[in-house]
């Protein structure tokens, strides 16, 4: 039991923090209940997917700066396709597009041997351009059932549908991978690329696969964006910085090899609920943006400082 506690101390701490923040919210706004939880979960949906994708590539030792742009591409693809064809095939195509974009990112990183951060910075602009080419201004339409899927509750009133969808989607992709050889390879490559290579891990393929998974999560994020707004928006949202901050806060070490997906997802909710609290305290929404930015930069700074200290000792 104590070994379990020590191993998951960070995640448990995050969960406690989340509970405390939920308590504070309830204290500020006694009316905060089921509907508040639902809107919180709905707002967190795209952030959660972006963070899940980012977490996978950070674990493999990289970073993907193009998550927000890939989400934009997927959102506009979904909005354009769903105007013309049935929802389910369109959904599959969008997921395929996301996976393909992620694989392209990974392949470019492996083939050109240019650092991840440079390649994905360039791809950030490429995907942004592609999104603009697909849809020049916000438009298109999404299937009604997709929008309905993100509203309301499952069973009892404390389990918002968006939360359930998020949990299922992420678990469906990540749990089998985590348990398989690929998951082990991802962690191995992240913690020491050279050692992994010498132990016979196909480093290149593992990286490509990790970026592919990231692309898949981005596709889900894009779909959820389209579902939330009902249209496709070609301009990338603020998901890059938020996802990096959530990943770092969630206990995944920048540089790779450590952490899981549960911590970052809890971190997403923590960051979202801070926003809710600020809104409830009637802080100017623009000031909220600043506070959020400061928190994110602060979290990344703290994370980096801790990593450096850990490496030194």
């Amino acid at each position, binding site marked *: 039991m104590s070994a379990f506690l020590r191993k998951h101390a960070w995640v448990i701490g995050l969960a406690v923090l989340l509970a405390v923040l939920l308590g504070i919210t309830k204290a500020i706004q006694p009316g905060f209940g089921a509907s508040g939880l639902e809107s919180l979960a709905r707002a967190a949906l795209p952030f959660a997917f972006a963070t899940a994708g980012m977490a996978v590539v950070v674990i493999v030792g990289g970073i993907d700066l193009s998550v927000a742009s890939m989400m934009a591409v997927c959102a506009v693809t979904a909005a354009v396709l769903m105007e013309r064809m049935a929802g389910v095939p369109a959904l599959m195509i969008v997921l395929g597009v996301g996976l393909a974009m992620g694989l392209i990112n990974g392949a470019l990183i492996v083939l050109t041997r*240019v650092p991840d951060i440079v390649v994905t910075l360039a791809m950030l602009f490429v995907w942004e351009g592609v999104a*603009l080419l697909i849809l*020049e201004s916000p438009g298109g339409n999404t299937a009604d059932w997709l929008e309905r899927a993100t509203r309301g509750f499952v069973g009892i009133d404390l389990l918002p549908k968006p939360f359930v969808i998020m949990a299922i989607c992420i678990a469906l992709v990540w749990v089998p991978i985590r348990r398989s050889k690929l998951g082990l390879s991802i962690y191995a490559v992240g913690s020491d690329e050279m050692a992994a290579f010498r132990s016979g891990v196909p480093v290149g393929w593992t990286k490509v696969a990790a970026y592919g998974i990231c692309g898949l999560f981005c596709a889900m994020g894009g779909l959820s964006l389209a579902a939330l707004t009902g249209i496709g928006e070609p301009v990338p949202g603020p998901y890059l910085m938020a996802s990096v901050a959530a990943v770092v806060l969630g206990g995944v070490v920048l540089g790779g090899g450590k952490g899981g997906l549960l911590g970052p997802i809890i971190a997403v909710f923590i960051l979202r609920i801070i926003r809710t609290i600020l809104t409830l305290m009637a802080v100017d929404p623009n000031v909220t943006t*600043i506070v959020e930015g400061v928190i994110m930069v602060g979290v990344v700074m703290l994370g980096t400082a801790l990593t450096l200290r850990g490496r030194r000792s």
Partner: protein
Amino acid sequence: MSMADTDTPLVRFGRVLRDNPMIPLIAFLLLLIAVLEVMRPGIVMPFRIGRDGLISSFWLGNLIKFAIPLAMLAACQVLTMLTAGIDLSVGVVATVSAFVCATLSSIWGVPQAVMMALACGLVVGLVNGFGVGIVRVHPLIMTLGTGLIATGCLQVYQRYVINAGSEIPAFLEWLGTGRTMGMPNGLFLFLPFAAFILWLMRYTGFGRNLFALGSNETAAKLSGVKSWQVLMALYALSGLIAALTGLLYLGMIRAPSLSLANPLLLPSVAAAVIGGTSIFGGRGSFAGAIVGALILRVLDTMLTLLQMPEGARTALFGLIILAVTALYVRITGTR
């Protein structure tokens, strides 16, 4: 010599390119202009007398005019890339500085407004320097974050000054839009600026420290370079340059907005990378970045003539950065 014999021709060619990056760059620029001339005869060279001659000098002046702010922002990227960093907050800083200057000029008077605008750039730069130099956050993430915060601050600020109206100082307008003998007045600012940056990089201890930190940080530290001081000064300088660019750009566009200079961010990175500055540190030249900025502007004209949509242009810029960096890695064999 024996080393050169064992290398492949590609690597040897790469070494020549690395030693003289200006030769292929200028050749490429001239080639592009030639292609442009073929695409739209008369745009560059006044083969016929009269109106066409006027147009061509107008076009050249325009090319230089719009390349100036790009080259100035590219200076930020060149300087930060020398230490294996990057400054992604320059677009936002330039916008903030332009907006602050335009809104405060009518309230506080022009000199104070300009000082205030530059101070904003300095503050963002110092925060970047703190994060990168002392806390050791990756520059890319740090500057992206400060850019976000600065955007938020700008939005809040904007709500308090919206009634005051905006005024563009006359001398900035002269600097941005005026012409002397067919050439833009911006050159009066840019030539001393370029000379300063070139001097800074080549002849000062600060410049040498930048190169030293970028090529081997451990060695530089062991030789007694205080990396945090250098990085702090570097990012503060980068913020100042970006603010200065914002002022010039304000005079050029004459309409302050909340995203005025943001579209310049990516081209500034691209200009630096095309100009032979390595994003991995230790190698770079500002002269190359200036030619890079000119190349991008010519390319821009070309894409406009081809009526490429905005999205294709953005994507193309991204691909250019990637291709050039990949080529660099390939031909020089270093990361």
